[in-house]
């Protein structure tokens, strides 16, 4: 980093994601980095954030570092309520109540569709065959993608992860673009941003194709285009994203006390 503050690309990604989360919102985070981003928002600028995990764990602040999972003891230590998956993902997310979700992706395409199921050699074809690499599957991300008012995709910016079209569509973004989501009556609004280790992509309001909306201080339009597997358009409003403030970084590191985001 050439900045005055020393921070990693993962930390920048987490902070940029956290900035998308507003105070008072009902928010759901997946395991890992997305949870750090969410709890960073709560620690930094959204003290009244109403947080949950898909495990039905409410009101908790993680202790002892990055939670092992959406239900683990690090998130169960100071919860105010434990319920169930149908409650969290059904009553509160698939219902359209949840304001914002944060999910990860192994592969994302230009319409914000997400693959977390598998890597195949080429297209799968009509016969469903085993993947070369089996990934974790849809988890709660499909439910968040269908139901949350908006959701944010966090993903490492590498060409192989940014495909023209995902090989397997695990969680719906804008499908083939435009109003395609309407065909399925999804109550959720779709992905509002893809936040990467290099910058931020947002959907065109009409076509819903994701375009570059901002780059991080250590990145550039060219670097991002080179790392994107489709012909990435650049928004006329694209601009550099503010680097983390000292306060933001301090608040993030309070949440990420074991330094999970400083390893890469």
């Amino acid at each position, binding site marked *: 980093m050439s900045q005055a503050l020393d921070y990693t690309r993962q930390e920048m990604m987490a902070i940029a994601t956290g900035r998308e989360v507003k105070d008072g919102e009902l928010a759901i985070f997946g395991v890992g980095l997305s949870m750090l981003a969410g709890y960073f928002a709560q620690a930094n600028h959204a003290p009244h954030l109403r947080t949950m995990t898909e495990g039905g764990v409410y009101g908790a602040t993680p202790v002892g570092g990055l939670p092992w999972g959406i239900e683990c003891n690090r998130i169960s230590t100071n919860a105010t309520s434990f319920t*169930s998956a149908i409650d969290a993902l059904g009553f509160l997310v698939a219902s359209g109540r949840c304001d914002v979700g944060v999910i990860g992706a192994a592969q994302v395409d230009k319409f914000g569709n997400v693959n977390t199921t598998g890597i195949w050699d080429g297209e799968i074809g009509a016969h469903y065959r085993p993947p070369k690499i089996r990934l974790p599957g849809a988890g709660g991300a499909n439910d968040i993608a269908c139901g949350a008012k908006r959701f944010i995709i966090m993903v490492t910016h590498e060409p192989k992860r940014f495909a023209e079209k995902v090989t397997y569509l695990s969680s719906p973004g804008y499908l083939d673009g435009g109003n395609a989501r309407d065909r399925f*009556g999804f109550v959720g609004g779709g992905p509002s941003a893809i936040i990467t280790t290099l910058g931020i992509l947002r959907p065109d309001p009409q076509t819903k194709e994701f375009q570059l909306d901002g780059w991080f201080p250590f990145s550039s339009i060219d670097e991002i285009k080179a790392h994107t597997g489709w012909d990435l358009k650049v928004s006329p409003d694209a601009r550099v994203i503010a680097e983390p403030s000292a306060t933001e970084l301090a608040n993030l590191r309070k949440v990420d006390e074991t330094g999970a985001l400083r390893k890469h």
Partner: protein
Amino acid sequence: MAQIKLISLQDAVQRYSWDGMQYASGAALPIGSDAIVFGRELLRQGRRDLHAVFHCSSQQLNLLAAAGVVTKAECGFSALEVFGFANGLRRAVESGRMALEDYSNLGLPLRLLGGALNWPFVPATVNIGSDLQYRSAFAPDDYPSQSKIPTVVDPFTGRQIGAFSPLKPDLAAIHVTLADPFGNCIMLGTEWSRVELSRAAKKVVIIADAIVDTDCIRQYPNLVRIPDIVVEAVVHWPFAAWPQSSPGMYDVDEAHMKFMNKALATEDGTAAYIRDFVDGYHDVDSYLDMIGRDKLAELSASTTSFLLDPYRRWILTPEQVAALQVTGAAA
């Protein structure tokens, strides 16, 4: 007067499992509650050709898949959260030995809800419009699949949504924190889908970290979300979810989570793991010795321990449990 249902783990697996069955485990949380010792015993007794129904993959499914005894599986999530991909499951899927039918973490419990209510189908407003709907590992040539999550017409609006098939597993082995000898259960931490599973499964065997007197149950009836009337048998097994965690009882064994998952990445590693950690004990005491008494103390020093405090005075000693178990076996 309810019946005492405490039996040994060995008896439970012998009586309630068979080759080719549809076997569900609960909570099937990747890091937390799961009836993992039941899976170890399934392996010890040589069960095979299982059709696994797991809300999520856990180390149990990872182990059973690695050992090659699962032919079909249905999951909402198939990794180990921060502990990464489930290597045993990955090998089974990638080699084509195990067909893994994908749903989401809401789709799976809604299918259990449908089984519990005996509905012919469950409305699906999620999983549709994605490859969760179009791709079926159980019917790989049905593409886009018309049978996995078919459409149903809403009679109020004429619009189409999806329809999930309900699940009614032959058996659910469900891990809980506390149970009384009759099968009244208290869970600490998220239920995940244990309530729905306990009502959907044809038979339920409870695996409890500790056994409490029924006075505890009568003091906290609102915590008893799995009542005795749906339970066939209760097995007492401390650290039953190890190396995963049980809120109030013990933390994740991080070292063993990684060690186990690494071992399951290969055939040889799996064989060694089974030798040492599946066939490596013959009762609860030797199981606890295998984990290591120092390790047990370390895992028990959990920041969640206070969650167990209200119930501690009702926990029965191993001797008391053993005495009741004899009664149960004689019944």
